[in-house]
Protein backbone atom coordinates (compact mmCIF):
# COMPACT_ATOMS: atom_id res chain seq x y z
CA UNK A 1 0.00 0.00 0.00
CA UNK A 2 1.25 3.44 -0.92
CA UNK A 3 0.32 6.45 1.18
CA UNK A 4 1.27 10.03 0.31
CA UNK A 5 0.69 12.25 3.31
CA UNK A 6 0.82 15.99 2.58
CA UNK A 7 3.85 15.66 0.31
CA UNK A 8 5.63 18.75 -0.96
CA UNK A 9 8.37 18.65 -3.51
CA UNK A 10 10.31 21.25 -5.44
CA UNK A 11 13.25 21.47 -7.80
CA UNK A 12 14.91 24.65 -6.59
CA UNK A 13 12.27 27.34 -6.83
CA UNK A 14 10.05 25.24 -9.07
CA UNK A 15 7.34 23.88 -6.76
CA UNK A 16 6.28 20.70 -8.49
CA UNK A 17 4.07 19.04 -5.88
CA UNK A 18 2.11 21.01 -3.34
CA UNK A 19 0.48 19.16 -0.49
CA UNK A 20 -0.31 15.91 -2.27
CA UNK A 21 -2.17 13.23 -0.34
CA UNK A 22 -3.55 9.95 -1.62
CA UNK A 23 -3.67 6.26 -0.82
CA UNK A 24 -3.27 3.48 -3.34
CA UNK A 25 -3.80 -0.09 -2.26
CA UNK A 26 -1.81 -3.01 -3.52
CA UNK A 27 -4.26 -4.40 -6.07
CA UNK A 28 -5.57 -1.15 -7.52
CA UNK A 29 -5.04 -0.12 -11.11
CA UNK A 30 -4.46 3.60 -11.02
CA UNK A 31 -3.78 6.06 -13.80
CA UNK A 32 -2.17 9.39 -13.00
CA UNK A 33 -3.12 11.87 -15.70
CA UNK A 34 -1.83 15.33 -16.26
CA UNK A 35 -0.20 17.64 -18.71
CA UNK A 36 3.47 17.54 -19.53
CA UNK A 37 5.64 18.85 -16.72
CA UNK A 38 3.03 18.59 -14.00
CA UNK A 39 5.09 16.20 -11.90
CA UNK A 40 3.79 12.78 -12.83
CA UNK A 41 7.24 11.27 -13.17
CA UNK A 42 8.20 13.03 -9.96
CA UNK A 43 5.53 11.09 -8.08
CA UNK A 44 6.92 7.77 -9.30
CA UNK A 45 10.43 8.79 -8.32
CA UNK A 46 9.18 9.70 -4.86
CA UNK A 47 7.52 6.31 -4.48
CA UNK A 48 10.81 4.58 -5.23
CA UNK A 49 12.80 6.85 -2.95
CA UNK A 50 14.97 8.12 -5.82
CA UNK A 51 14.25 11.64 -4.60
CA UNK A 52 13.10 12.81 -1.18
CA UNK A 53 10.14 15.07 -0.45
CA UNK A 54 10.71 18.51 1.07
CA UNK A 55 7.89 17.95 3.53
CA UNK A 56 5.30 15.31 4.24
CA UNK A 57 5.50 11.55 4.50
CA UNK A 58 5.51 8.69 2.03
CA UNK A 59 4.49 5.44 3.62
CA UNK A 60 4.87 2.14 1.81
CA UNK A 61 3.43 -0.96 3.44
CA UNK A 62 3.29 0.84 6.74
CA UNK A 63 6.90 2.02 6.63
CA UNK A 64 7.87 5.64 6.32
CA UNK A 65 10.47 5.76 3.56
CA UNK A 66 11.26 9.46 3.72
CA UNK A 67 14.30 9.08 5.94
CA UNK A 68 15.56 5.68 4.92
CA UNK A 69 19.13 5.15 3.81
CA UNK A 70 19.96 3.85 0.37
CA UNK A 71 20.55 0.36 1.80
CA UNK A 72 17.19 0.27 3.55
CA UNK A 73 15.43 1.58 0.47
CA UNK A 74 16.56 -1.44 -1.51
CA UNK A 75 13.90 -3.62 0.11
CA UNK A 76 11.23 -1.06 -0.67
CA UNK A 77 12.30 -0.84 -4.30
CA UNK A 78 12.16 -4.60 -4.66
CA UNK A 79 8.40 -4.41 -4.21
CA UNK A 80 8.03 -2.47 -7.43
CA UNK A 81 8.91 -2.87 -11.01
CA UNK A 82 9.21 0.32 -13.03
CA UNK A 83 9.45 1.16 -16.69
CA UNK A 84 10.97 4.59 -17.04
CA UNK A 85 9.73 7.14 -19.50
CA UNK A 86 12.94 6.95 -21.50
CA UNK A 87 13.28 3.21 -21.11
CA UNK A 88 16.66 3.80 -19.47
CA UNK A 89 18.24 0.67 -20.89
CA UNK A 90 21.93 0.22 -20.17
CA UNK A 91 23.33 1.46 -23.44
CA UNK A 92 26.60 -0.42 -23.27
CA UNK A 93 24.84 -3.77 -22.92
CA UNK A 94 22.87 -5.49 -25.66
CA UNK A 95 19.19 -6.36 -25.34
CA UNK A 96 19.89 -9.79 -23.93
CA UNK A 97 22.26 -8.52 -21.26
CA UNK A 98 19.84 -5.73 -20.37
CA UNK A 99 17.02 -8.15 -19.72
CA UNK A 100 19.35 -10.59 -18.01
CA UNK A 101 20.74 -7.89 -15.70
CA UNK A 102 18.51 -8.65 -12.72
CA UNK A 103 18.70 -12.39 -13.24
CA UNK A 104 22.46 -12.25 -13.09
CA UNK A 105 22.38 -9.95 -10.11
CA UNK A 106 19.96 -11.87 -7.93
CA UNK A 107 19.50 -15.40 -9.10
CA UNK A 108 21.91 -18.26 -9.36
CA UNK A 109 20.56 -19.45 -12.69
CA UNK A 110 22.90 -21.11 -15.12
CA UNK A 111 23.77 -19.47 -18.42
CA UNK A 112 21.32 -21.73 -20.29
CA UNK A 113 18.48 -20.97 -17.92
CA UNK A 114 19.13 -17.24 -18.21
CA UNK A 115 19.14 -17.47 -21.99
CA UNK A 116 15.88 -19.39 -21.89
CA UNK A 117 14.23 -16.93 -19.50
CA UNK A 118 15.38 -13.90 -21.50
CA UNK A 119 13.99 -15.33 -24.72
CA UNK A 120 10.72 -16.11 -23.01
CA UNK A 121 10.41 -12.55 -21.67
CA UNK A 122 11.28 -11.05 -25.03
CA UNK A 123 8.70 -13.30 -26.65
CA UNK A 124 6.03 -12.00 -24.27
CA UNK A 125 6.72 -8.44 -25.41
CA UNK A 126 7.24 -9.49 -29.01
CA UNK A 127 10.81 -8.42 -29.73
CA UNK A 128 12.55 -11.78 -29.63
CA UNK A 129 14.28 -11.10 -32.94
CA UNK A 130 16.13 -8.11 -31.46
CA UNK A 131 17.96 -10.12 -28.82
CA UNK A 132 21.46 -9.35 -30.10
CA UNK A 133 20.93 -5.66 -30.89
CA UNK A 134 22.27 -2.73 -28.89
CA UNK A 135 19.77 -0.27 -27.39
CA UNK A 136 20.66 2.48 -29.86
CA UNK A 137 19.76 0.17 -32.72
CA UNK A 138 16.17 -0.21 -31.50
CA UNK A 139 13.15 1.80 -32.54
CA UNK A 140 11.25 3.74 -29.89
CA UNK A 141 8.58 1.09 -29.51
CA UNK A 142 11.08 -1.75 -29.33
CA UNK A 143 13.04 0.19 -26.76
CA UNK A 144 9.95 0.54 -24.60
CA UNK A 145 9.09 -3.12 -24.93
CA UNK A 146 12.58 -4.27 -24.02
CA UNK A 147 12.36 -2.00 -20.98
CA UNK A 148 9.12 -3.73 -20.02
CA UNK A 149 10.74 -7.13 -20.48
CA UNK A 150 13.61 -6.05 -18.28
CA UNK A 151 11.27 -4.85 -15.58
CA UNK A 152 9.54 -8.23 -15.66
CA UNK A 153 12.81 -9.98 -14.96
CA UNK A 154 13.05 -8.14 -11.65
CA UNK A 155 12.17 -10.47 -8.86
CA UNK A 156 8.39 -10.82 -8.48
CA UNK A 157 7.20 -7.25 -7.96
CA UNK A 158 4.06 -6.53 -5.95
CA UNK A 159 3.16 -3.56 -8.09
CA UNK A 160 4.03 -2.24 -11.51
CA UNK A 161 4.84 1.37 -12.24
CA UNK A 162 4.71 2.55 -15.83
CA UNK A 163 5.88 5.97 -16.91
CA UNK A 164 4.28 6.86 -20.26
CA UNK A 165 4.41 3.26 -21.38
CA UNK A 166 2.44 3.95 -24.56
CA UNK A 167 3.44 7.49 -25.42
CA UNK A 168 5.03 7.94 -28.82
CA UNK A 169 3.88 4.57 -30.11
CA UNK A 170 1.58 3.88 -33.04
CA UNK A 171 -1.96 2.81 -32.04
CA UNK A 172 -1.32 -0.83 -32.87
CA UNK A 173 1.75 -1.07 -30.70
CA UNK A 174 0.14 1.04 -28.01
CA UNK A 175 -2.73 -1.42 -27.96
CA UNK A 176 -0.35 -4.37 -27.73
CA UNK A 177 1.37 -2.78 -24.78
CA UNK A 178 -1.94 -1.95 -23.08
CA UNK A 179 -2.99 -5.58 -23.37
CA UNK A 180 0.39 -6.67 -22.07
CA UNK A 181 0.09 -4.38 -19.08
CA UNK A 182 -3.39 -5.67 -18.31
CA UNK A 183 -2.25 -9.26 -18.67
CA UNK A 184 0.61 -8.75 -16.29
CA UNK A 185 -1.58 -7.46 -13.51
CA UNK A 186 -4.28 -10.08 -13.97
CA UNK A 187 -3.52 -11.97 -10.81
CA UNK A 188 -4.39 -9.05 -8.61
CA UNK A 189 -1.11 -7.17 -8.84
CA UNK A 190 -1.77 -3.46 -8.93
CA UNK A 191 -0.24 -0.86 -11.14
CA UNK A 192 0.26 2.85 -11.43
CA UNK A 193 0.22 4.13 -14.96
CA UNK A 194 1.44 7.62 -15.63
CA UNK A 195 0.31 9.03 -18.91
CA UNK A 196 -1.28 11.88 -20.75
CA UNK A 197 -3.03 9.56 -23.16
CA UNK A 198 -6.41 9.19 -21.54
CA UNK A 199 -7.46 6.80 -24.29
CA UNK A 200 -4.98 4.19 -23.11
CA UNK A 201 -5.60 4.98 -19.48
CA UNK A 202 -9.30 4.10 -19.63
CA UNK A 203 -8.40 0.75 -21.19
CA UNK A 204 -6.18 -0.17 -18.29
CA UNK A 205 -7.03 1.67 -15.13
CA UNK A 206 -10.02 1.60 -12.81
CA UNK A 207 -9.14 4.67 -10.83
CA UNK A 208 -7.97 8.00 -12.19
CA UNK A 209 -6.12 10.92 -10.68
CA UNK A 210 -5.66 14.20 -12.45
CA UNK A 211 -2.68 16.32 -11.54
CA UNK A 212 -2.70 20.04 -12.16
CA UNK A 213 -0.58 22.85 -10.73
CA UNK A 214 0.90 20.57 -8.11
CA UNK A 215 -2.35 19.36 -6.62
CA UNK A 216 -4.67 16.47 -7.34
CA UNK A 217 -7.62 18.05 -9.06
CA UNK A 218 -9.60 14.89 -9.49
CA UNK A 219 -9.58 11.41 -7.98
CA UNK A 220 -12.25 8.88 -8.87
CA UNK A 221 -13.35 5.96 -11.03
CA UNK A 222 -14.29 5.89 -14.70
CA UNK A 223 -17.92 6.85 -14.06
CA UNK A 224 -16.91 9.91 -12.09
CA UNK A 225 -14.29 10.81 -14.66
CA UNK A 226 -16.82 10.87 -17.46
CA UNK A 227 -19.13 13.13 -15.50
CA UNK A 228 -16.42 15.35 -14.13
CA UNK A 229 -16.90 19.06 -14.62
CA UNK A 230 -13.21 19.98 -14.42
CA UNK A 231 -12.54 21.83 -17.64
CA UNK A 232 -9.12 20.26 -18.35
CA UNK A 233 -10.56 16.80 -17.99
CA UNK A 234 -13.32 17.77 -20.41
CA UNK A 235 -10.67 18.53 -23.01
CA UNK A 236 -9.11 15.10 -22.48
CA UNK A 237 -12.51 13.42 -22.66
CA UNK A 238 -13.38 15.18 -25.90
CA UNK A 239 -10.40 13.52 -27.46
CA UNK A 240 -11.69 10.10 -26.45
CA UNK A 241 -15.24 10.71 -27.61
CA UNK A 242 -13.90 12.02 -30.91
CA UNK A 243 -11.98 8.85 -31.53
CA UNK A 244 -15.03 6.81 -30.51
CA UNK A 245 -17.13 8.65 -33.04
CA UNK A 246 -14.50 8.16 -35.68
CA UNK A 247 -14.52 4.45 -34.87
CA UNK A 248 -18.29 4.26 -35.27
CA UNK A 249 -18.48 6.16 -38.53
CA UNK A 250 -15.50 4.24 -39.83
CA UNK A 251 -16.88 0.79 -39.03
Amino acid at each position, binding site marked *: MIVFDKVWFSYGINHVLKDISFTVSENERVAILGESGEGKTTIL*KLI*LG*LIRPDAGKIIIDGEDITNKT*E*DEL*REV*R*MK*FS*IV*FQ*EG*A*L*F*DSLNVKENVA*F*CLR*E*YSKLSEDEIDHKVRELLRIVGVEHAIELMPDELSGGMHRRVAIARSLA*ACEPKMFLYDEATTGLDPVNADIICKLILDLSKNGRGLILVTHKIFDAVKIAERFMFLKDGIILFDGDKEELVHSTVSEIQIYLNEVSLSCKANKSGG
Partner: protein
Amino acid sequence: MKIKELISELQDFYLLSARGLLGAVKKPFYLKDMIEQMDYAGAGSFVIIFLVSIFTGMALSLQLSAELSSLGLKMYTGKVVGISIIREIGPVTAALVYAGRVGSGIASELGSMILGHQIDSLRVFGVDPMKKLVTPRILSSIIMLPALTIIGDVVSLCGGYYIAVFVSHQSGTFYWSSIRDVLTFENVFAGSVKPFIFGYLIACISCYMGLSTKGGSKGLRKSTTRAVVVSIVMIIVSDFILTRILLYVLGFSV
Protein backbone atom coordinates in the same frame (compact mmCIF):
# COMPACT_ATOMS: atom_id res chain seq x y z
CA MET B 1 25.24 30.86 -0.51
CA LYS B 2 28.23 30.07 -2.74
CA ILE B 3 30.23 28.94 0.26
CA LYS B 4 27.42 26.74 1.50
CA GLU B 5 27.23 25.05 -1.89
CA LEU B 6 30.97 24.55 -1.96
CA ILE B 7 30.96 22.96 1.47
CA SER B 8 28.14 20.61 0.61
CA GLU B 9 29.90 19.66 -2.62
CA LEU B 10 33.09 18.94 -0.72
CA GLN B 11 31.13 16.86 1.76
CA ASP B 12 29.60 14.83 -1.06
CA PHE B 13 33.03 14.35 -2.53
CA TYR B 14 34.49 13.07 0.74
CA LEU B 15 31.53 10.76 1.22
CA LEU B 16 32.03 9.34 -2.27
CA SER B 17 35.75 8.87 -1.71
CA ALA B 18 35.19 7.09 1.59
CA ARG B 19 32.26 4.96 0.51
CA GLY B 20 33.95 4.05 -2.76
CA LEU B 21 36.91 2.69 -0.88
CA LEU B 22 34.76 0.98 1.76
CA GLY B 23 33.00 -0.88 -1.04
CA ALA B 24 36.19 -2.89 -1.42
CA VAL B 25 35.59 -4.66 1.89
CA LYS B 26 31.82 -4.90 1.86
CA LYS B 27 29.73 -7.35 -0.16
CA PRO B 28 28.67 -7.56 -2.92
CA PHE B 29 31.87 -7.48 -4.96
CA TYR B 30 31.77 -6.77 -8.67
CA LEU B 31 34.89 -8.56 -9.78
CA LYS B 32 33.93 -8.64 -13.43
CA ASP B 33 33.46 -4.88 -13.57
CA MET B 34 36.77 -4.39 -11.86
CA ILE B 35 38.64 -6.59 -14.32
CA GLU B 36 37.00 -4.76 -17.20
CA GLN B 37 38.08 -1.45 -15.70
CA MET B 38 41.62 -2.67 -15.10
CA ASP B 39 41.81 -3.77 -18.69
CA TYR B 40 40.54 -0.44 -20.00
CA ALA B 41 42.52 1.76 -17.64
CA GLY B 42 45.71 -0.23 -17.35
CA ALA B 43 46.33 -2.30 -20.42
CA GLY B 44 44.65 0.32 -22.59
CA SER B 45 46.97 3.07 -21.34
CA PHE B 46 50.14 1.12 -21.93
CA VAL B 47 51.02 2.43 -25.38
CA ILE B 48 50.47 6.07 -24.56
CA ILE B 49 52.44 5.77 -21.30
CA PHE B 50 55.23 4.09 -23.24
CA LEU B 51 55.39 6.87 -25.81
CA VAL B 52 55.22 9.71 -23.34
CA SER B 53 57.80 8.13 -21.04
CA ILE B 54 60.39 7.33 -23.63
CA PHE B 55 60.37 10.86 -25.00
CA THR B 56 60.38 12.42 -21.55
CA GLY B 57 63.40 10.31 -20.65
CA MET B 58 65.22 11.21 -23.85
CA ALA B 59 64.48 14.92 -23.58
CA LEU B 60 65.57 15.03 -19.97
CA SER B 61 68.76 13.14 -20.65
CA LEU B 62 69.56 15.30 -23.66
CA GLN B 63 69.01 18.53 -21.79
CA LEU B 64 71.00 17.44 -18.76
CA SER B 65 73.96 16.03 -20.64
CA ALA B 66 74.22 19.25 -22.64
CA GLU B 67 74.08 21.36 -19.49
CA LEU B 68 76.34 19.12 -17.42
CA SER B 69 78.99 18.67 -20.12
CA SER B 70 79.49 22.42 -20.28
CA LEU B 71 80.32 22.19 -16.59
CA GLY B 72 82.42 19.10 -17.16
CA LEU B 73 80.09 16.98 -15.03
CA LYS B 74 78.72 14.75 -17.80
CA MET B 75 79.12 11.59 -15.74
CA TYR B 76 76.39 12.74 -13.39
CA THR B 77 73.74 12.51 -16.13
CA GLY B 78 72.64 9.05 -15.04
CA LYS B 79 72.29 10.03 -11.43
CA VAL B 80 70.30 13.18 -12.05
CA VAL B 81 68.09 11.56 -14.68
CA GLY B 82 67.51 8.61 -12.35
CA ILE B 83 66.52 10.68 -9.33
CA SER B 84 64.28 13.05 -11.21
CA ILE B 85 62.50 10.28 -13.11
CA ILE B 86 61.99 7.94 -10.19
CA ARG B 87 61.01 10.51 -7.60
CA GLU B 88 59.21 13.21 -9.56
CA ILE B 89 58.78 13.07 -13.30
CA GLY B 90 57.80 9.42 -13.66
CA PRO B 91 54.87 9.45 -11.20
CA VAL B 92 53.65 12.88 -12.29
CA THR B 93 53.72 12.24 -16.05
CA ALA B 94 52.04 8.88 -15.66
CA ALA B 95 49.35 10.47 -13.50
CA LEU B 96 48.79 13.33 -15.92
CA VAL B 97 48.46 10.96 -18.85
CA TYR B 98 46.15 8.76 -16.80
CA ALA B 99 43.97 11.72 -15.83
CA GLY B 100 43.66 12.78 -19.43
CA ARG B 101 42.82 9.37 -20.75
CA VAL B 102 41.07 7.47 -17.97
CA GLY B 103 39.72 10.33 -15.87
CA SER B 104 37.90 11.88 -18.79
CA GLY B 105 36.62 8.45 -19.78
CA ILE B 106 35.22 7.78 -16.32
CA ALA B 107 33.54 11.18 -16.09
CA SER B 108 31.92 11.01 -19.51
CA GLU B 109 30.75 7.42 -19.06
CA LEU B 110 29.15 8.03 -15.67
CA GLY B 111 27.80 11.36 -16.85
CA SER B 112 25.98 9.87 -19.79
CA MET B 113 24.65 7.13 -17.53
CA ILE B 114 23.21 9.84 -15.27
CA LEU B 115 21.66 11.67 -18.20
CA GLY B 116 20.14 8.47 -19.61
CA HIS B 117 18.60 7.65 -16.20
CA GLN B 118 20.65 4.48 -16.14
CA ILE B 119 21.90 5.18 -12.64
CA ASP B 120 18.28 5.47 -11.51
CA SER B 121 17.63 2.12 -13.17
CA LEU B 122 20.48 0.59 -11.21
CA ARG B 123 19.16 1.97 -7.95
CA VAL B 124 15.67 0.69 -8.72
CA PHE B 125 17.08 -2.79 -9.30
CA GLY B 126 18.61 -2.54 -5.85
CA VAL B 127 22.17 -2.18 -7.10
CA ASP B 128 24.28 0.38 -5.29
CA PRO B 129 25.94 2.53 -7.99
CA MET B 130 28.68 3.28 -5.48
CA LYS B 131 29.67 -0.38 -5.33
CA LYS B 132 28.94 -1.29 -8.91
CA LEU B 133 30.50 1.74 -10.58
CA VAL B 134 32.68 3.75 -8.21
CA THR B 135 34.49 1.04 -6.26
CA PRO B 136 35.77 -0.88 -9.30
CA ARG B 137 37.06 2.35 -10.80
CA ILE B 138 38.83 3.45 -7.64
CA LEU B 139 40.39 0.05 -7.05
CA SER B 140 41.52 -0.40 -10.62
CA SER B 141 43.12 3.05 -10.58
CA ILE B 142 44.90 2.34 -7.30
CA ILE B 143 46.29 -0.85 -8.80
CA MET B 144 46.96 0.17 -12.37
CA LEU B 145 48.46 3.63 -11.99
CA PRO B 146 51.40 2.38 -9.87
CA ALA B 147 51.93 -0.43 -12.35
CA LEU B 148 51.92 2.02 -15.23
CA THR B 149 54.25 4.31 -13.32
CA ILE B 150 56.81 1.55 -12.84
CA ILE B 151 56.66 0.67 -16.53
CA GLY B 152 56.92 4.35 -17.41
CA ASP B 153 59.96 4.79 -15.15
CA VAL B 154 61.78 1.88 -16.75
CA VAL B 155 60.98 3.10 -20.24
CA SER B 156 62.13 6.64 -19.38
CA LEU B 157 65.40 5.38 -17.99
CA CYS B 158 65.96 3.38 -21.19
CA GLY B 159 65.25 6.50 -23.22
CA GLY B 160 67.76 8.36 -21.08
CA TYR B 161 70.26 5.57 -21.63
CA TYR B 162 69.90 5.80 -25.38
CA ILE B 163 70.69 9.51 -25.40
CA ALA B 164 73.50 9.26 -22.84
CA VAL B 165 75.27 6.46 -24.69
CA PHE B 166 74.59 7.07 -28.36
CA VAL B 167 74.25 10.84 -28.52
CA SER B 168 76.32 12.11 -25.62
CA HIS B 169 78.87 9.22 -25.87
CA GLN B 170 79.02 8.27 -22.23
CA SER B 171 79.71 4.83 -20.85
CA GLY B 172 76.61 2.65 -20.71
CA THR B 173 77.84 0.59 -17.79
CA PHE B 174 78.49 3.71 -15.83
CA TYR B 175 75.02 5.03 -16.64
CA TRP B 176 73.37 1.88 -15.30
CA SER B 177 75.61 1.71 -12.25
CA SER B 178 74.72 5.27 -11.35
CA ILE B 179 71.05 4.40 -11.84
CA ARG B 180 71.57 1.44 -9.49
CA ASP B 181 73.07 3.79 -6.92
CA VAL B 182 69.94 5.91 -7.15
CA LEU B 183 67.65 2.94 -6.50
CA THR B 184 67.86 3.28 -2.74
CA PHE B 185 64.95 2.49 -0.48
CA GLU B 186 64.20 6.17 0.10
CA ASN B 187 63.99 7.05 -3.57
CA VAL B 188 61.98 4.03 -4.60
CA PHE B 189 59.62 4.43 -1.65
CA ALA B 190 59.07 8.12 -2.35
CA GLY B 191 58.43 7.40 -6.01
CA SER B 192 56.04 4.53 -5.44
CA VAL B 193 53.85 6.06 -2.73
CA LYS B 194 52.79 8.83 -5.06
CA PRO B 195 51.01 6.85 -7.79
CA PHE B 196 48.76 5.13 -5.27
CA ILE B 197 47.57 8.48 -4.01
CA PHE B 198 47.34 9.99 -7.50
CA GLY B 199 45.31 7.01 -8.70
CA TYR B 200 42.89 7.33 -5.82
CA LEU B 201 42.54 11.08 -6.38
CA ILE B 202 41.96 10.81 -10.12
CA ALA B 203 39.35 8.06 -9.76
CA CYS B 204 37.46 9.84 -6.97
CA ILE B 205 37.47 13.21 -8.72
CA SER B 206 36.37 11.75 -12.04
CA CYS B 207 33.63 9.61 -10.51
CA TYR B 208 32.36 12.55 -8.51
CA MET B 209 32.32 14.88 -11.50
CA GLY B 210 30.64 12.26 -13.67
CA LEU B 211 27.96 11.49 -11.12
CA SER B 212 27.16 15.15 -10.53
CA THR B 213 26.52 15.78 -14.23
CA LYS B 214 23.38 17.67 -15.03
CA GLY B 215 22.13 19.72 -17.95
CA GLY B 216 22.39 17.59 -21.08
CA SER B 217 25.34 17.40 -23.42
CA LYS B 218 26.67 20.79 -22.34
CA GLY B 219 26.61 19.58 -18.76
CA LEU B 220 28.50 16.50 -19.86
CA ARG B 221 31.12 18.65 -21.52
CA LYS B 222 31.47 20.66 -18.35
CA SER B 223 31.80 17.69 -16.05
CA THR B 224 34.32 15.93 -18.29
CA THR B 225 36.45 19.05 -18.55
CA ARG B 226 36.20 19.65 -14.84
CA ALA B 227 37.22 16.09 -14.08
CA VAL B 228 40.44 16.46 -16.09
CA VAL B 229 41.26 19.99 -14.98
CA VAL B 230 40.66 19.38 -11.29
CA SER B 231 42.57 16.08 -11.47
CA ILE B 232 45.57 17.75 -13.09
CA VAL B 233 45.65 20.59 -10.59
CA MET B 234 45.25 18.20 -7.68
CA ILE B 235 48.03 15.95 -9.00
CA ILE B 236 50.49 18.83 -9.16
CA VAL B 237 49.48 20.31 -5.83
CA SER B 238 49.47 17.01 -4.00
CA ASP B 239 52.78 16.11 -5.62
CA PHE B 240 54.35 19.16 -4.03
CA ILE B 241 52.81 18.39 -0.65
CA LEU B 242 53.82 14.74 -0.85
CA THR B 243 57.36 15.63 -1.81
CA ARG B 244 57.58 17.90 1.19
CA ILE B 245 56.18 15.27 3.54
CA LEU B 246 58.31 12.47 2.14
CA LEU B 247 61.51 14.50 2.35
CA TYR B 248 60.67 15.23 5.96
CA VAL B 249 59.71 11.65 6.83
CA LEU B 250 62.75 10.14 5.12
CA GLY B 251 65.02 12.60 6.90
CA PHE B 252 66.40 14.63 4.01
CA SER B 253 67.39 18.19 4.73
CA VAL B 254 66.46 20.73 2.08
